[in-house]
């Protein structure tokens, strides 16, 4: 896998250059409660603060129930916080927008549309399909799905379906891609392939990505920074900058990061109570 050179050193340098710049996404003092069916109030996120610079690839990791998906939904605008603000390019997020692409865990393709029609959905919904028709095939090629245009979602594998979902989000030219455990339901080979594809796309488009995952290796492999969250109420436990010379899953650096993260997560799960 070391053939994918994403030169994280350069990336770090890039974000240093932009240190003075306003963050692309700014999450400040977020509180989010949910009321359960029995009327209990569950605090899902408590005082979450996070700034994300343009071009960063942030991994958010934590045990289930720590509110990482909720945090991602707040950034996309699919959900609203009770207190605190999420700003995108300096403006508060008040609803979903194609400039913040979202990739769901699985099963988000429209089963009655072909692969091609799924990718074209955003263009059609925004009424720009006629002008930008050709991009559909470009993006399908980009995620390696040329030849599958006319298949329906139930005819393709889970990994391919996620690639369709990614192409569908990318065609809207998002400035940030929000990934909600997009590889959670895939086998490890497909997962490794998709991770590299994501890195390629990230490099190619100099895109900002926020990835929610429960896989420590994935978080380290992809992220420039790993945000560790603790549950009940969900808050940010720690932010670990990742500085790997190569993205090599068996290198000493990688193993060291893994050990450190696992220690933190272990503490998060058991020591937090």
């Amino acid at each position, binding site marked *: 896998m070391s*053939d*994918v050179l994403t030169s994280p050193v350069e990336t770090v340098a890039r974000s240093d250059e932009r240190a003075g710049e306003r963050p692309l996404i700014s999450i400040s003092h977020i509180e989010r409660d949910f009321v359960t069916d029995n009327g209990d109030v569950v605090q899902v996120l408590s005082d979450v603060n996070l700034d994300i610079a*343009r*071009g960063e690839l942030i991994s958010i990791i934590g045990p289930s129930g720590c509110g990482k998906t909720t945090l991602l939904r707040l950034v*996309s605008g*699919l959900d609203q916080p009770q207190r605190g603000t999420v700003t995108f390019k300096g403006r508060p997020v008040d*609803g*979903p*927008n*194609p400039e*913040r*692409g*979202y990739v*769901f865990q699985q*099963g*988000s393709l*429209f*089963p*009655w*549309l*072909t692969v091609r029609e799924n990718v074209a*959905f*955003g263009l*059609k*919904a*925004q009424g720009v399909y006629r002008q930008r028709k050709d*991009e559909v095939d*470009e993006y399908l*090629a*980009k995620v*390696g*799905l*040329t*030849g*599958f245009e006319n*298949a*329906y979602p*139930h*005819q*393709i594998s889970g990994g*391919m379906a996620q690639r369709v*979902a990614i192409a*569908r*989000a990318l065609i*809207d*030219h*998002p*400035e940030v891609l929000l990934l909600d455990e997009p590889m959670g339901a895939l086998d490890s080979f497909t997962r490794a*392939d998709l991770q*590299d*594809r994501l890195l*390629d796309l990230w*490099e*190619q*488009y*100099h*895109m900002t990505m926020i990835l929610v995952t429960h896989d420590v290796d994935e978080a380290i492999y992809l992220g420039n920074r790993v945000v560790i969250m603790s549950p009940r109420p969900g808050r940010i436990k720690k932010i670990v900058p990742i500085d790997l010379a190569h993205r090599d899953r068996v290198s000493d650096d990688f193993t060291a990061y893994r050990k450190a993260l696992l220690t933190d997560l272990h503490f998060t799960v058991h020591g937090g109570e």
Partner: protein
Amino acid sequence: MSSVTVDLAESAAPQARRSGRDQSAVKPTPLFTRRRNTAANTVASASDAHSPARSTVALRFLPYPLVVAFTAAGFVIALLANILVPQIAPVEFKQGQLWILALNGQEAYQGLLVILALVYIAIGLADARKPAAAARFRYRAQFRFAAGLALAAWDIAGTKIQSLPQPFFPGPAQVLEPFLTSGDYIALNTFYSLRLFAAGFIVGVILGVVTGVLIGWFSRAYYWVFPVLKITGVIPAVAWMPFALTLMPTPFIAAVFLLVICSWFPVAFLTAQGIQSTPKMLVEASRTLGASTPYILFHVAIPHAMPSIFTGIGMANSLSFLTLIISEMMGQPGGLGYYIDQAKVWSAYNEILAAIVVMAVLFSLIMKLIELVRGRVLRWQKGLVK
């Protein structure tokens, strides 16, 4: 936006790098062909659940030409039975007119058997070159042969010796007789039924889809209309007939009204259910892709509800046949139900059976038509096991 400009030239490099690991990226087409074939096979074996190969044990080793001959043989036997068995019971065969042919029931029956035998021979020969069709033809041969024997038995018991109680069980020749003696009248009544059915069913389905979408999508419509739908929907439409006949300007409109309400309920109910069961994730995905609420309704919720809508249409269809015939029997100046009602007065059970034959054919064709539309609209479900 400049940071995400599409650069195709750049994409070539990662593609090439990936090619070592991901074969599907390099050669997707053959893989897809295989997959699609698999899907097609699944469809074929699913639709022919009683698959030819498995079930035709008796005829598996018969050469195909003999299978064709065997299929036709049943009808030939029926024909021979009709010609050779002496007429014992005193039956009078009335002469009638079929287009330019002056025939009686007996001759028409013989003609029908000849036609059936010839048609099956023609189909058998046409299917000979297509393995799947030939297998299907082979599979059905036994049943068709048996159908011929059944006709022969019916002919002997119903016409030749009349061992069945009369006039309730006329033979095939007598059932064909009304088509010869009063073919125009049957056609007129069939047309009346068809017109009534089309008007009521189509309006009912359209109204049903519209109300279903409103109920399923708008919580206010759900609050006010759904309880009404739930209560009035369970009442058989024909119960309203006295009101309909009194309040509507013509009996035809009254029957249309009954057909509308009987098809409206199941369609509205199932459309609403389909709309409401739209997965939240699909709606959210559409919103992140920039779809407006009306766009989501028409391009996500309604397509998602389509399978459910067609289930409702299927139910409405069966209910409409029922409502159609009952309302025609109880107060229409025409139609197949009216025809049966009139025949009943004269104890002309052969005419009743003739009308029943017309219904069997007509309603099967209508159901087939709906099935075709359904298959076309829901083609994405092909091969999807639910």
